[in-house]
C-alpha cells in the first residue's frame, strides 16, 4: 500500500498475511510428504516463503511481506521398489524430500510469531482506545 501511510494496523495485517503464506507453504510441504513420482523432475520439492522488510519512510514503520515462494533444491529420495505401480523402467521411485520435523517446527514458529503480532496489536489498540476516551 504505497499510497496510504502505514499504521500499526496495516503493519500487523501485512505481518499476519506473511505468516499465513509461510504457514500455508509449510502445510503444503507436510501434505506432500511421502508423495511419489516415477521421474526425478516430477517429484515434489518443498516450498519456502521468502520474507522482505518494507520500510515506510513517512511513519518510520517497517512491515513484512512475502516476496514469493521458492522451491528447495534438495534432490528427491531415490528408492528401489520394483513392485510400485509408479516405478520407472529400472524399478526406482522418487520420493518428495520433505523433512516432517523441520516443517512442524516451521509451523510452530510461524504460529508463535502470529501470536506475537496479535498480542502487540492488542496492547497498542488498548492504549489507543484509552487515549481516545480520555476527556
Amino acid at each position, binding site marked *: 500500500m504505497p499510497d496510504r501511510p502505514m499504521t*500499526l494496523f496495516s503493519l500487523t495485517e501485512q505481518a499476519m498475511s506473511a505468516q499465513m503464506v509461510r504457514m500455508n507453504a509449510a502445510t503444503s510441504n507436510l501434505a506432500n510428504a511421502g508423495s511419489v513420482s516415477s521421474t526425478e523432475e516430477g517429484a515434489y520439492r518443498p516450498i519456502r516463503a521468502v520474507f522482505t522488510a518494507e520500510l515506510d519512510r513517512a511513519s518510520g514503520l517497517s512491515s513484512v511481506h512475502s516476496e514469493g515462494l521458492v522451491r528447495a533444491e534438495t534432490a528427491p529420495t531415490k528408492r528401489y521398489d520394483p513392485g510400485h505401480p509408479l516405478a520407472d523402467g529400472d524399478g526406482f521411485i522418487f520420493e518428495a524430500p520433505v523433512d516432517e520435523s523441520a516443517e512442524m517446527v516451521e509451523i510452530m514458529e510461524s504460529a508463535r510469531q502470529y501470536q506475537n503480532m496479535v498480542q502487540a496489536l492488542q496492547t497498542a489498540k488498548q492504549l489507543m482506545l484509552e487515549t481516545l476516551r480520555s476527556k
Partner: protein
Amino acid sequence: MSESIFGIHGAALELRSQRMGVLASNIANAATPGYKARDIDFAAALQSRLEQGQLEQGRSGNPIMASAQDAHILYRAPTMPSLDGNTVELNREQIAFSENALAYSATLSFVQGKVNTLTRALKGE
C-alpha cells in the same frame, strides 16, 4: 501552547507512540532475513524534542516537530548475531514493548490528570 500546559508529557506521549511502532516493526520482521532491529533512544529524542520546542517558542512560531526524532532511531546491537543477518531478538523486543506500553500508560495518566485539573478550574466547582 500545549507545551506550556502538558510540559514534558505531551512530547513524551508522542515519542512513546512512535517507539511502539518501531518495536512492533521489529516484532513483525522477526523472521525477515537481513532485517536489522531498530529502537528509539528515548532520552535523547525527548531531550532534543524539548530543546526544539523551546527554540520554536522563542521564535513564537507554531511548533512543527517532525523528523527530529528520526536522528535518534538506532540499530540494536544483538546479543548473538544470527546467520541470516537478522538482529531481532524476540525476548528483548517483547520486554521493550511491554515496558514502553507501561510508560505510555503512565504518561497518559499524567496528561489526563493535567486535563482534569484544568477542567475543574474552569468549572469552578
